[in-house]
């Protein structure tokens, strides 16, 4: 026979009392949230006004102005150049970086940690900030954009390549080591081929990411279509801005479609 009293004593409570940290965390969150709303001056008046302004923007943007279509396309071409050159170099540099950063291929723990820190730095600093830094270094224009994309891609691919390399089964690598092959031969013969499909997948994601980055890079003067968009906007030529936005949209969607098709074929 079960003891009724014992059962009720041992029964877990419906809700466990949250810890002090939970209350503290909630309080901090709430303070920042409310302060944020006040500081940004979000009022119902401004929301209404905003909707009205958006309406007038679209009214002035239609129909899209294609008078400067030629130079817009030329700027788009520059963006494509930035993407193609920047991403290619970025992916290329990511291979050695990833191999140095992976614990199963790195020659020394110190080198591994140094490269890991470098990759983390590339990744955590936003691409726009890189662009601003490179504009100081090489001046306005697409070269700064290319450098920003290279660094951004290295942060992205460096990490994903290295994660894939570390996941590789040790067996085939050991088999080639056991033949008396050098470290480089082992990497070329087993690490790269085994990780290759994943490298392709990550690289395609990097391409998609770079396109979105490259479009925005122009806003800070690092070349490409962003420069045109910035100019049209500041000159209130909204109909021209819409043309630019539509071209960007078409291109980004096109590349993403192509990329997902290639990915399906490969993996």
């Amino acid at each position, binding site marked *: 026979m079960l003891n009724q009293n014992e059962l009720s004593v041992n029964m877990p409570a419906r809700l466990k009392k949250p810890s002090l940290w939970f209350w503290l965390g909630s309080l901090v969150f709430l303070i920042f949230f409310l302060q944020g709303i006040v500081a940004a001056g979000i009022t119902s008046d401004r929301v209404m006004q905003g909707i009205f302004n958006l309406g007038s923007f679209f009214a002035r943007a239609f129909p899209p102005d294609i008078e400067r279509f030629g130079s817009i396309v030329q700027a788009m071409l520059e963006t494509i150049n930035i993407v193609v050159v920047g991403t290619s170099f970025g992916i290329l540099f990511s291979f050695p970086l990833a191999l140095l950063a992976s614990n199963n291929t790195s020659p020394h723990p110190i080198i591994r940690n140094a490269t890991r820190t470098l990759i983390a730095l590339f990744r955590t600093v936003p691409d726009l900030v890189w662009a601003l830094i490179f504009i100081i270094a090489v001046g306005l224009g697409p070269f700064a954009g290319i450098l920003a994309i290279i660094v951004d891609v290295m942060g992205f691919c460096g990490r994903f390549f290295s994660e894939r390399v570390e996941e590789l089964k040790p*067996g*085939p690598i*050991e*088999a*080639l*080591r*056991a*033949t*008396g*092959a*050098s470290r*480089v*031969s*082992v990497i*070329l*013969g*087993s690490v790269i*081929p*085994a990780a*290759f*499909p994943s490298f392709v997948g990550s690289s395609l994601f990097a391409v998609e990411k770079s396109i979105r980055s490259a479009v925005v890079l122009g806003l800070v003067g690092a070349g490409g279509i962003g420069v045109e968009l910035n100019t049209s906007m500041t000159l209130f030529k909204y109909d021209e801005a819409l043309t630019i936005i539509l071209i960007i949209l078409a291109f980004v969607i096109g590349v993403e479609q192509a990329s997902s098709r290639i990915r399906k074929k490969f993996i």
Partner: protein
Amino acid sequence: MSLIKVQNLTKQYPDGETALKDVSLEVKSGEGIVLLGANGSGKSTFLRCLVGLEKATSGKILIDNQDIVSSSKKQLQEIRKKIGVVFQKFNLVNNLSAFQNVLFGNLGQSNKGFWSSLNLTASSEEREKAMECLARVSMAEFADRRTDTLSGGQRQRVAIARMLMQDPEIVLADEPVASLDPRAGREVMNLLWEIIEEKGLTVMCILHQLDFALEYGERLVGLQKGSLTLDRSAANINKKELNWLYEAEKVVKNYA
């Protein structure tokens, strides 16, 4: 003179676990040794130490009078060239062709390194040799197939061809047929031994099947909890005595 000379080999893992205790063994050129032992007895570790995939804690491993334990990286690569290894899980590079995998057997041999082992850039003699190796294991018709589309038995044949490509003096095999069904296992075992005999290779092979051990081994060596407890010619041993190796736990407890 002995081809392999192991002296007081001890292997201790960083976590303090002792895998091998003071193991000494001499193997003459052309000998066929079957290594036996229960799971965790240290036989795989022993084999891995012999080719330097595992670094011995103390002791000596002389291959052709060169010590693996104290050798530099370059010397180790030189010694490894003489040793072909066949693994339980085949360890082929799966998304490459059988042919390319066999060519990789050449990786350590040529001074030109990687490029003489890549299908695209290898010399025609090397490519022909790889085809001959594949033909020797009856896999020539599968040369262009990715190895992950092959059966277990076929993959192990490709791995044996890769070992052949290496032209080793010594063959180390770690449970080469444990992943295969009985029929494929028998075929692969026959093939491996044929090749070993035909080339007069020295072999050390871990086997789990006692029938195979008695049938193929000339000399049986048994490990128990990292110590060498059996070393005898296969002719004067019976299956009952071998079973004793696998009851290690009980026996050791009784005598402790």
